[in-house]
């Protein structure tokens, strides 16, 4: 259970003092941008002239726009694949690096390298890996006697892009989960060993329950990142003039808001995406009560 202690005496004042920066952040940052986006979504704003009232027009336009609806579908499909892959693989990496093997500092740094490399460069490297004629992946397939695939063509592109995204996010997930693993007291394992528990049993009985709060955190973060994904996808699917063949919701928001003088429309799209995220978070927090073990 979260927060078991009731504050006593001066603690009551102290905890609010310690929360003061956070409260200020909420007041200035979160509330401000939420409110601004909410209000702007009801206006037409070209960023140049003052916003003019548009009522629910922007929302109606979104829901009647096949391009936006397609972007919503692509985004949801992407997140549905991205989140489990991301969390499971990050956990696998973290476990691998938590075994006390020699040289793991080096491996950790190299595994983290993708997370700090610019999306432009990574996008480019992946277009070479996926290239249909002389790409690395297709050459590998041919060596294995398999038929080459047009990875960035219709159909395969969705998976190719998802894999590249997961690849870029693994380092971050790994670091976070590794921190979670470090919090598991070694004494628990020692006790289990004495009891004669095997590796699998230790994992399911000790590791998994004890790091479930961190896994829960990573699931939420991956969901938010997945639903707001944009950079990598854009880099792999871009065409001339800043176009993309796999438009996600945030890509459209960016285009409408910053390129096409439609900040009102972009804000409405952001609010719709926000609603999706809120619904998912509510569901997650409901599940948390059942699945996540605290203490």
């Amino acid at each position: 259970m979260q927060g078991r202690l009731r504050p006593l005496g001066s603690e009551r004042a102290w905890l609010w003092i310690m929360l003061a920066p956070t409260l200020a952040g909420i007041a200035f940052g979160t509330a401000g941008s939420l409110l601004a986006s909410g209000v702007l979504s009801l206006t037409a704003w070209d960023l140049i002239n003052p916003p003019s009232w548009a009522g629910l027009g922007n929302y109606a336009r979104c829901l009647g726009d096949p391009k936006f609806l397609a972007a919503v579908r692509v985004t949801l499909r992407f997140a549905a694949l991205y989140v489990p892959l991301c969390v499971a693989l990050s956990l696998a990496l973290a476990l691998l690096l938590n075994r006390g093997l020699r040289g793991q500092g080096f491996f950790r740094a190299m595994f983290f390298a993708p997370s700090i490399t610019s999306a432009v460069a990574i996008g480019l490297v992946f277009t070479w890996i996926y290239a249909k004629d002389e790409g690395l992946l297709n050459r590998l397939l041919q060596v294995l006697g398999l038929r080459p695939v047009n990875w960035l063509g219709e159909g395969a592109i969705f998976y190719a892009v998802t894999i590249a995204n997961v690849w870029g996010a693994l380092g971050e997930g790994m670091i976070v989960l590794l921190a979670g693993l470090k919090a598991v007291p070694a004494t628990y394992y020692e006790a289990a060993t004495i009891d004669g528990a095997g590796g699998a049993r230790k994992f399911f009985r000790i590791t998994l329950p004890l790091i479930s709060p961190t896994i829960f955190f990573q699931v939420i973060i991956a969901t938010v990142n997945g639903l707001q994904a944009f950079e990598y996808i854009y880099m792999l699917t871009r065409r001339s003039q800043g176009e993309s063949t796999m438009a996600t919701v945030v890509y459209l928001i960016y285009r409408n808001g910053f390129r096409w003088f439609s900040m009102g429309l972009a804000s409405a799209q952001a609010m719709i995406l926000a609603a999706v995220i809120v619904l998912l978070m509510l569901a997650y927090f409901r599940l948390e009560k059942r699945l996540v073990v605290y203490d």
Partner: protein
Amino acid sequence: MIDQASRARRAAGAAAGYIALIFVLALTAGPFIWMLSTSLKPLADQYDGRLLPVRPTLANYARLVKAAPFLLRQVWNSFELSFLNTLGQVLTCAAAGFVFAVFRFRGRDLVFSLLLASFVIPPQVALIPNFIVFSKLGLVGTKLPLWATAFLGGAYGTFLLRQFYSSVPVELAEAARVDGVSLPLMFWRIYLPLAKPAASALAIMTFTGTWNDLLRPLIYLPSQQKLTTLTVGLSLYQYTYSGQWTFLMACAVLAVLPILAVFFLAQRQIIEGAALTGIK
């Protein structure tokens, strides 16, 4: 006999571990190594598809060397901002995470939900309202907007630390209380050192996030080479439609190196830092 068998099993386990590590290394570092290798190729060889450059050259880095005075300045600016952001985030998020995880009080869940609400608005949309506020305050053109907000907590870090602290036995706080330790001291002396693994994960994330941020320094700072950050400065070189990927990769390598060095130097100390030593 038993000892030998268990030693053999351990060795086999380690071998399997290394095989897995090297496999993952090929997957994660492979593209990265390709990037490095491409940056060492002459333009004519950029599509030769070879992992190692046949005619290695430093020519792609030469154009960057010319701009060295700017680049050093930019590295410093990036470092300054990354450091301040990291400091602010670790301190304020750890404090808030501690309070949320350990105590039960009226209004806690409401505040926590509001905090998480900042996840739902894509950063691209929050950019303009925030910029307008700082513009009205007359702070555009200074570095302040790029680090001050880091001292106002944040959903990511607070949530991460809260999750971490929630697996810490509550007896720890109770014991401290019995000893008459006040709440800020309890945080500073006991809980903050305890959070080293999670706080260092947050530190790494904040540091790299700030380092790689392009849009915010671009709009808040004057887009002049001596005043901006490395990421913005290098973006000037990465004219993505020029087709000269060898040069672009040299820029990308340069952008990564300082931060990879920081990570490499710091990670052992921060991740393997004595976790949970104080608990029985």
